[in-house]
């Protein structure tokens, strides 16, 4: 309960800051973003993150699944290693590289964020599927479930909480990363922040940063809810205890 109180307080403050900054109209000779511009930027921001995340889920989960299968298992140490190393590359460098390689704009940002989200999703899918107890799979096989029935009725339901945790982490991280994408002209709240930095107007930076933070917090809470909702009831108790 206390969690929600803090959450709503924080959201309230962030929205307050956004509205206040927008209401200023001008700071010195600089004009603040209009309400429409803030709203459009927020939606654009969300669009970049959501597109990248959706692609990462569509491609990451099947890859994570394949590397747990016998024929591809040899790839898994390489892939997990790659995922860990990939996370250490600075976001800024990553987006810069994408911008140079693909040309500035929306596509480059989505591709960069997609790759960035892909690795934790693969890693968590792999870890979740590997954590299914072998005796549970053996019992399933011994009772006559086909390979696909075991995957769909046993392995994925048991791995689901871990997979969703991966999606949640990568989404929240990417809301932050997407702000950097403003640098390569992808639009989104990064635009406001970048212009704020360029003209050294703190209020303008806040006008972009506050809604981005609010977005991250909201998505985190929503996906947290989804995580609990999709955790099989019989496993919730053990996970807390």
């Amino acid at each position: 309960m206390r969690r929600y109180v803090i959450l709503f307080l924080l959201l309230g403050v962030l929205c307050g800051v956004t509205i206040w900054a927008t209401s200023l109209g001008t700071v010195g000779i600089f004009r603040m973003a209009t309400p429409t511009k803030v709203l459009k930027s927020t939606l654009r921001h969300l669009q970049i993150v959501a597109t990248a995340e959706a692609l990462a889920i569509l491609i990451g989960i099947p890859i994570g699944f394949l590397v747990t299968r016998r024929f591809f298992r040899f790839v898994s140490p390489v892939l997990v290693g790659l995922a860990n190393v990939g996370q250490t590359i600075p976001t800024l460098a990553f987006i810069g590289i994408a911008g140079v390689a693909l040309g500035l704009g929306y596509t480059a940002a989505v591709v960069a964020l997609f790759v960035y989200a892909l690795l934790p999703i693969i890693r968590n899918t792999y870890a979740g599927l590997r954590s299914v107890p072998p005796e549970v799979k053996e019992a399933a096989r011994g009772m006559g479930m086909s390979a696909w029935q075991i995957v769909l009725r046993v392995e994925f339901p048991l791995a689901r909480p871990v997979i969703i945790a991966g999606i949640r982490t990568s989404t929240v991280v990417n809301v932050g990363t997407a702000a950097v994408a403003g640098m390569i002209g992808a639009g989104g709240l990064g635009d406001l922040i970048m212009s704020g930095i360029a003209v050294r107007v703190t209020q303008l930076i806040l006008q972009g940063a506050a809604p981005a933070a609010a977005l991250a917090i909201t998505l985190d809470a929503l996906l947290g809810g989804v995580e609990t909702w999709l955790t099989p009831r019989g496993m919730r108790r053990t996970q807390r205890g």
Partner: protein
Amino acid sequence: MIRLESVTKTYPGGTTAVKDLSLEVKQGEFCIFLGPSGCGKTTSLKMINRLIPLSSGRIFIDDVDTMQQDPNVLRRNIGYAIQGIGLFPHLTVAENIATVPKLKKWSKEKQRSVAEDLLELVGLEPDTFIDRYPSELSGGQQQRVGVARCLGGNPPILLMDEPFGAIDPITRNRLQDEFLKIQDQLKKTIVFVTHDLNEAIKMGDKIALMRNGELMQYADPTTLLNAPKDQFVRDFIGADRVLKGLRLLRARDVMQDPPVTILDEDDPSEVKARLDQSGMPWAMVSNAKGRFLGWITADELEPGKSVRETLIPPEVTAGPGTPLNEALSLMFNSAIGTLAVTDREERMVGVLSFDILRDVLGQQAADLKAEVKAEAKAAAEASASNETQGSGA
């Protein structure tokens, strides 16, 4: 009926897990694969439902070669229980038990009623347990659900791989007893893997003793204990054969009829008269339906008090299938040093006393003495003939 013909399992590395194993398990028979770890017993079991493919040889179930069936269809008709239980943590007890019924596409109502019936059978109150999750059950309760689940599709054959291996000895004992009672009722064809000799002797109709992938002896428990085929079997069975012999006998083999039985509604003074007349210090009390309620002793009978008020409820009872070594330890917990034997419906079927057990032990000790003497004599003769041969050369 299960028939193994020259079954061999060789792994790519060249190790042979099972070598030329041939044996037959008859309809309704409880067969134990027994042996030290690494003897190939689990591998043999898993080849029956094709979890492990054979290297050579054939396995028949009711004269049909298992290789000619779809493995999943084959497995759905063979109950399977393992030491780790492997209950599905994300499914309720009912859904776990109905795993095979669901695979066989039985109706929802039938799945539910199967789960209810099987919970009842394994001694778990359906209303309490049916909608729980495995994480909400104790280890013993999970094991019971595991047994219920392997019976789910009503298979004629059960394969059980140390199903009671991972639980404490007291619970294990109770589960063994209950499972024997269930088997008395269901008459499944069972292959049961264990490394525990006590469990093998208690549960099995037939024991296949294995070592290094080879079948050393395949016989009923009595034969295995009394006529071990070679030194390995003898060593595995151990030295204290007299006490172990108690395990071979079941309560039903030696129990006596209750000497004096009364009903709980009987008049106390009449009961007193009957006890005096028979010379017994106690009587067994049942209700009109034959259900065993407890004991009554002559000393405690008072004219004013009804039988129901004076009776001593039984702390423990044995079943007809309880081995005598367990009956002996139960007896120490009985109020009057005598153990009532009751059937599944708690009707009394007999009594066991120290005197009865002493007679059994005495008889076995005498048999063993004679056997040891005979062995010594044979050994002496053998060495004598060796000597004559030696001097002749």
